């Protein structure tokens, strides 16, 4: 009975979202106040309905209701409860339900937290969100119903979740990523609403900024979690594979990063407006494209697409409708948008323009590398794959100007910068960053490569520039200690975001250049030594988990004769799907990770073992966390809080200060 109720409330939510799309727009057109006001109520009702439906699916997973087909294929009663819960979004149907659930979560957040906005604007925004929700509800209900029953012949136990996904990473990675994906729908809705209204002013940029930032923070954390998960779960120690599924999440991130920068310009200076709108439309369109690529099955297998063409075609149709429709609206309305401000070639505006150009270039590289194999195959030229070296090389090239300009950019003034004034600070930054690079490499690098020097320099160039800029800004009017307290949250946010990137760059540089990877054959009692580390293969023990069996290899690690860790690398066999899995043993540290993964047992009883030494790999995930923290700080900035008294004055004063101090 429960699943039917879940299905029913899902349909109810679908109907409500349709009303949420139509009624407020009708109200705005005719000036009918009741209809305008209904937007909020309908959004809240829609959220309650879908939340109820989601809760029922989650509950059914917990109580092992294998009469539901989706649960029977993706769960098993031997799984611990938390994996049964996260299995809700372990496959297609459930993850789409999660998607619409989160979408309605964002909608209700907009409905409740934008009391300060004109009620007509809110109504328009909610109507656009209603349209998106409606499309996805239809998709779930018509093609991917998670509540479908297997009655009357239901299995006694489920077929288990893919073992790769039975992991803490999966509990949080998809929801985070989806929060990011779906969050861009708010920026999208704001942009569409503004285009419908034909009014794009700084207020628009100001409203949509914290929302965009929130989505970006989630996406950043989600991608970092995914990379971390791939590192420890896939068993070969890589952190990014340029896999189409990864690229699908990286593209909206690039567009979103460009968007938060260009929104800043639109808010503060009133320029780049139509470009910002275009970015807002692109960020969400790329999220949709990502969903299409991952969910339609075109990527995994062309056959999956053909075997269930309704799903792929539905998303494709929706994609074309949303992207096409929004671009059409943009084409009609964008000419009405006038950017007032003027700026010189040497100005912060130009610097941010360069930032955007480089980010879009990176986006195009990823888009090309992801879609070309599909196109190539479809036009009958045979299948190809685009190797990692392509992406790596392109990003190595792009990151150089990006970091250099990033370091300089925040020193530029808005509107106009006398280049002569920058000579002194720039030479200082250059000297300091070269010195730091030398010191850093002297301590941590066993040998030198050109790329290592370049990468480390770029990282320190950014760090030094950021610190110097904070120093300059705080000593502008006050003593340093007083001035540094007066820096606004937004300023700290910017600095942290940039520092995060520097941390990532250094992490990637060190990992890519100085990792040691040994694939060797070891028998119990053997040992291998490198880089002051000695790995001794102590013994192999049997392993018994709730829904798997296997073996665990135990290693003692010594550094310069001193024991530092006992590492346990597992080889699991998940009993239901008869699927082997490697659980790597990782001894994590801020400057290096030690990584052991068991391969197969060879005919003579010895084991194939992977032993890695990965310097600074943690920094690759530390960086995004710093960035995300910066983003959260920015959302807490006074100007975005919905206090009435702040509303009128604050933006002006902060703006002025920002402009003059910059």
């Amino acid at each position, binding site marked *: 009975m429960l699943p039917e109720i879940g299905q029913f409330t899902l349909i109810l939510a679908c109907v409500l979202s349709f009303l949420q799309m139509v009624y407020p727009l009708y109200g705005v057109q005719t000036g009918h106040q009741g209809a305008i006001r209904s937007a909020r109520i309908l959004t809240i009702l829609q959220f309650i309905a879908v939340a109820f439906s989601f809760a029922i699916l989650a509950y059914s997973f917990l109580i092992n209701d294998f009469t539901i087909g989706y649960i029977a294929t993706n769960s098993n009663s031997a799984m611990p409860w938390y994996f049964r819960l996260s299995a809700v979004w372990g496959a297609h149907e459930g993850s789409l339900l999660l998607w619409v659930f989160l979408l309605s979560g964002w909608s209700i957040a907009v409905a409740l937290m934008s009391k300060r906005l004109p009620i007509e604007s809110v109504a328009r925004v909610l109507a656009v969100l209603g349209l998106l929700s409606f499309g996805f509800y239809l998709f779930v209900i018509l093609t991917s119903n998670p509540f479908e029953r297997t009655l009357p012949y239901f299995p006694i136990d489920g077929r288990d979740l*893919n073992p*790769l996904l039975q992991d803490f990473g999966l509990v949080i990675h998809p929801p985070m990523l989806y929060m990011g994906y779906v969050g861009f729908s708010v920026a999208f809705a704001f942009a569409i609403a503004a285009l419908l209204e034909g009014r794009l002013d700084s207020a628009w940029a100001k409203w949509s900024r914290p929302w965009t930032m929130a989505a970006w923070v989630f996406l950043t954390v989600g991608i970092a979690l995914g990379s971390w998960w791939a590192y420890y779960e*896939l*068993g070969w120690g890589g952190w990014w594979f340029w896999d189409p599924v990864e690229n699908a999440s990286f593209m909206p991130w690039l567009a979103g990063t460009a968007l938060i920068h260009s929104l800043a310009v639109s808010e503060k200076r009133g320029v780049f407006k139509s470009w910002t709108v275009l970015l807002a439309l692109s960020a969400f369109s790329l999220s949709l494209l990502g969903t299409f690529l991952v969910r339609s099955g075109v990527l*995994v*297998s*062309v*056959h999956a697409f053909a075997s269930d063409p309704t799903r792929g075609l539905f998303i494709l149709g929706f994609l074309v409708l949303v992207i096409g429709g929004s671009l059409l609206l943009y084409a009609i309305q964008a000419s009405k948008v006038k950017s007032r401000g003027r700026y010189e*070639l040497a100005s912060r505006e130009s610097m941010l323009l360069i930032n955007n150009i480089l980010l879009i*270039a990176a986006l*195009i*590289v990823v888009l*090309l*590398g992801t879609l*070309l194999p599909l196109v190539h195959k479809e036009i*009958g*030229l*045979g*299948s*190809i*794959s*685009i*190797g990692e*070296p*392509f992406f790596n*090389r*392109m990003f190595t*090239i792009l990151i150089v100007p990006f970091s250099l300009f990033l370091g300089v950019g925040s020193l530029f003034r808005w509107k106009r910068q006398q280049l002569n004034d920058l000579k002194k600070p720039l030479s200082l930054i250059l000297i300091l960053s070269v010195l730091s690079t030398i010191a850093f490499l002297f301590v941590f690098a066993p040998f030198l490569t050109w790329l290592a020097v370049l990468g480390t320099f770029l990282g320190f160039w950014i760090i030094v520039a950021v610190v110097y800029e904070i120093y300059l800004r705080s000593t502008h009017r006050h003593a340093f200690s007083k001035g540094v307290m007066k820096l606004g949250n937004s300023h700290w946010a910017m600095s942290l975001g940039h520092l995060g990137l520097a941390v990532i760059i250094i992490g990637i540089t060190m990992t890519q250049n100085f990792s040691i990877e040994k*694939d*060797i*054959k070891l028998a119990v009692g053997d040992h291998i030594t490198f880089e002051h580390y000695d790995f001794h293969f102590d013994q192999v023990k049997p392993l018994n988990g709730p829904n798997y069996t296997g073996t665990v290899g135990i290693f003692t690690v010594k550094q310069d004769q001193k024991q530092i860790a006992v590492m346990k690398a597992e080889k699991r066999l998940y009993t239901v*799907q*008869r*699927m*082997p*899995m*490697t659980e790597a043993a990782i001894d994590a540290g801020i400057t290096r990770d030690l990584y052991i993964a068991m*391969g*197969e047992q*060879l*005919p*003579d009883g010895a084991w*194939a*073992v*992977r032993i890695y030494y990965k310097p600074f790999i943690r920094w690759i995930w530390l960086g995004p966390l710093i960035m995300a923290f910066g983003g959260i700080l920015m959302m807490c900035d006074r100007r975005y809080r919905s206090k009435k008294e702040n509303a009128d004055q604050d933006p002006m004063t902060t703006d002025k200060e920002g402009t003059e101090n910059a």
Partner: protein
Amino acid sequence: MNPRRKKRLLITSSLIAGLSLAIGLTLYALQQNIDLFYTPNEILNGKNETGEKPEIGQRLRIGGMVLNGSVQRNPESLKVSFDLIDNKAGQVTVYFDGILPDLFREGQGIVAQGVLKSENSIEAFEVLAKHDEEYMPPEVAEALKGMEHLKTESELAK
């Protein structure tokens, strides 16, 4: 020319120059890194679509089924070799030095990435067997069409 136009000209021309440079570099990098996919038969007799045969030393991807009984290991190291077959007459030997993926088995479809060493052998630097038993790369599935009798044990057990 008035200064404003001059500025615009400067911006536009530098944009165009930068853009064409970027596109040129991208296409060059792309060309270097496109790995064509071959089946064992295509390695020996040329691609189905174009009839082109791969050259020795070329980077490529190959997909096929691991021939039963063909896996040979070097007792001293992790070096291993095995033969890949498809639904036509192709048979190609793959040499690999490293750890084979968890799902690598005789009779299983796999994809290898590597360099063509001689007419019928490949030095692989990566061997992939996908992490899902039911999933077979589409290219491999196509190459193996009609070879149902070679099903793996686990598939037969289902």
